[in-house]
């Protein structure tokens, strides 16, 4: 039953909405270090929910998740609230799994540096000077060091997204999750984003990118997963995925 040497391994994940609808219907997947995985699927297929289950912003009911061989979640019956110990475990898990939201959710009351420093300072409990150093390093990585003092609202959409990435990076995550990262970017900026993602993979971070943009998936991913109705219906290389010989993908790729 012990997982292999995968960075993240998920087995038998199931989740229902409170109204009884099944949203995740037995998900199995494994992600490797330094690998970019694209998760595709039609709207409402459960891909964003799966992403939120991985860092436990949502709780699933059945199934297990291992992170670097450590069992981090066994699911939780609906309605039960986490106790103090479980909240701390949650916080520890989320330090290791970064999430870049579709809406970015930068903190408007802080400047760029403040946004990126918040995690190292208060979650990692680093001294202020060191938290600043970590934050500046993360900003340098996304090429935004010189905008550290700007208000998030003063930046362009592409720059804001890179701040959101830097905010997640500053925590030193092992796995980084992206929820529809290209939905608000114009094509020129999409190229820049793809470069950033590839660059992070080279550093050994695992990446899972939820998208419905086939071009992006093709350009960025080492592996492609297709989801439909709460199940993963395809797993393979981009070439396999977009080669056209898989009937279960035809409906989606054609649309």
């Amino acid at each position: 039953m012990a997982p292999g040497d995968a960075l993240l391994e998920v087995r038998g994940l199931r989740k229902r909405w409170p109204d009884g609808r099944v949203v995740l219907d037995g998900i199995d997947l494994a992600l490797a270090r330094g690998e970019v995985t694209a998760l595709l699927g039609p709207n409402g297929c459960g891909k964003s929910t799966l992403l939120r289950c991985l860092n436990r912003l949502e709780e699933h009911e059945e199934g297990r998740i291992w992170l670097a061989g450590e069992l981090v979640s066994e699911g939780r019956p609906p309605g039960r609230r986490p106790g103090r110990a479980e909240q701390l475990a949650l916080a520890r898990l989320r330090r290791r799994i970064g999430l870049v939201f579709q809406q970015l959710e930068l903190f408007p009351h802080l400047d760029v540096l403040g946004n990126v420093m918040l995690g190292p300072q208060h979650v990692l409990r680093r001294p202020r000077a060191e938290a600043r150093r970590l934050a500046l390093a993360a900003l340098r990585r996304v090429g935004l060091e010189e905008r550290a003092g700007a208000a998030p609202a003063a930046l362009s959409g592409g720059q804001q997204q890179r701040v959101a990435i830097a905010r997640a990076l500053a925590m030193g995550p092992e796995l980084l999750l992206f929820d529809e990262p290209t939905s608000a970017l114009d094509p020129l900026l999409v190229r820049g984003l793809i470069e950033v993602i590839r660059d992070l993979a080279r550093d050994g971070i695992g990446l899972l990118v939820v998208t419905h943009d086939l071009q992006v998936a093709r350009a960025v991913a080492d592996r492609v997963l297709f989801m439909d109705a709460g199940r993963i219906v395809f797993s393979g290389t981009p070439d396999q995925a977009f080669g056209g010989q898989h009937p279960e993908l035809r409906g989606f790729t054609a649309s």
Partner: protein
Amino acid sequence: MTRLGRRSWPLAAALLGGLLACRAQAPPEPGAPDPGAPEPMAARAPAGTSLRRIQDEGVLRWGVDPAGGAPFAMPDPRDPRRLVGFEIELVEQLARHLGVRSEPVEGDWLALIDNLRAGRIDLALNGIEVSAERAQVIDFTVPYYRYGQQLTVRAADRDRFRSLADLAGRRISVLNGSASVDVLRAAGWPEERIVQYDDSLAPYVDLANGRVDGSLAESIIAGYYAEAIRGLHRVPGTFAPGAYAGAVRKGEPELRAAIDAALERMKASGELGRIYQRWGVWTEEQRELGIARGPAVERIPLASADAAGGLDWGVVLRELALATGTTLALTAISMPLAVGIGLVLALMERSRRRWLVVPARLYVQLVRGTPLLVQIFLAYYTLPALGEAAGLGKALVWPAFAVGVLCLAGNYAAYEAEIHRAGLEAVPRGQREAALALGMTPAQVLRHVELPQSFRVILPPIVNDLVAMIKDTSLVYVIGVRELTAAALGIGKARLLVPQLLVAAAAFYLVASLAADRLGKRLEARLRSSAAQVPGARRLA
């Protein structure tokens, strides 16, 4: 405002009466006698008695309401923080006989006896008429002044209204709660024609203004005020005589005996007679109480509207500025407390635990649904009784200022809770998730993400409440805090310049409110312009 205060008082009194089933008993308080005090007249009282405590502390705390005004007790026109009046001198002299110093404790006249029973004071002496009703709840000392009821009418009506009977069916003004009210009731006056006022001056002002046709008061009051206001005529002769006496808690024979002995000495020696002459309240009837007139002394001049030219506005304005300091201190302490307690209440209400939600909601509804004035009266007069009942002794006998802060902070907290709730709800849900996704605990999310954003939203309504509170602090004057309104009324009544002083006080309130508003606006602007500036980033630039 004062009128409202009196109206709401019976409720508080009724509650208090129920709570105060047992009489207050002072615990023995060890302490060395003041070495500077003169030789006490009486021997050391038995340990555990109030008299012993008074002797040990060297202070006689006694209750008086300066709103009753001259010649009983009023703020000194030259130094309005001091009280002057014949009763002030009387108790000073009395305390000297007991070998202690006198410390007047200001409070609402109708609550003097409650303050006595709560243990804030050991003697109430302020024109309290001896009556069988009062004797059931307190013990009277020997009487110190003989009064009669005297009627005052407008000078133009002097031939029309020569007696109470001539005024049948007309409205008559009286001092609230005084024996005059009982006299009118006994004479068949319906309640709606007995117009009661909180202070001694207002009945005569309204008589001069024509809102009432006569004014009935104890001769001592009539003699002072009817003379000070032009166009009024005192109908000669007095009726329905009675006497003033001090009040002490029941069950304290040692204290009462010591005060009685001192009073009797002062009566016989002419000390009391001299005080009465100085204040122009000496009458031959005083001899019935065994008071010797003593050697003739000159009467101190009356304050009157004519003396307005002599009012030193420099002194008055300084006095009002000082009282404004008290008003601002009340606000400056209460408002941050209110914002803090309000936040706790808001967080309780947001909690998913019913045992937190229910008490918070209950508190907010209860406090918002009842008048601040009633809360102030209740807190001031029932907290001591509650403390007593809970076995805390005198732990809840707080000074008026502290009770004022408690009520203002507690009352505004309910409103600030609602503001906090709205502010926290205005922070988008995604912000919370983004912070949680960083690995923050819910407490950290609140502290570093939700509260800073909420604060920007709620600052304007909080500044608005701050301005409102500056003015609401005026309500605590009913429990004797000498803030701006109390100071203005005190000086105004002492000098018969109430309208002028109220306008001056209003100007002070206006300036304070404008300043607070400006401060708030500047803070808002600063937050807006530096929406994103954290110190780290500034140093980077």
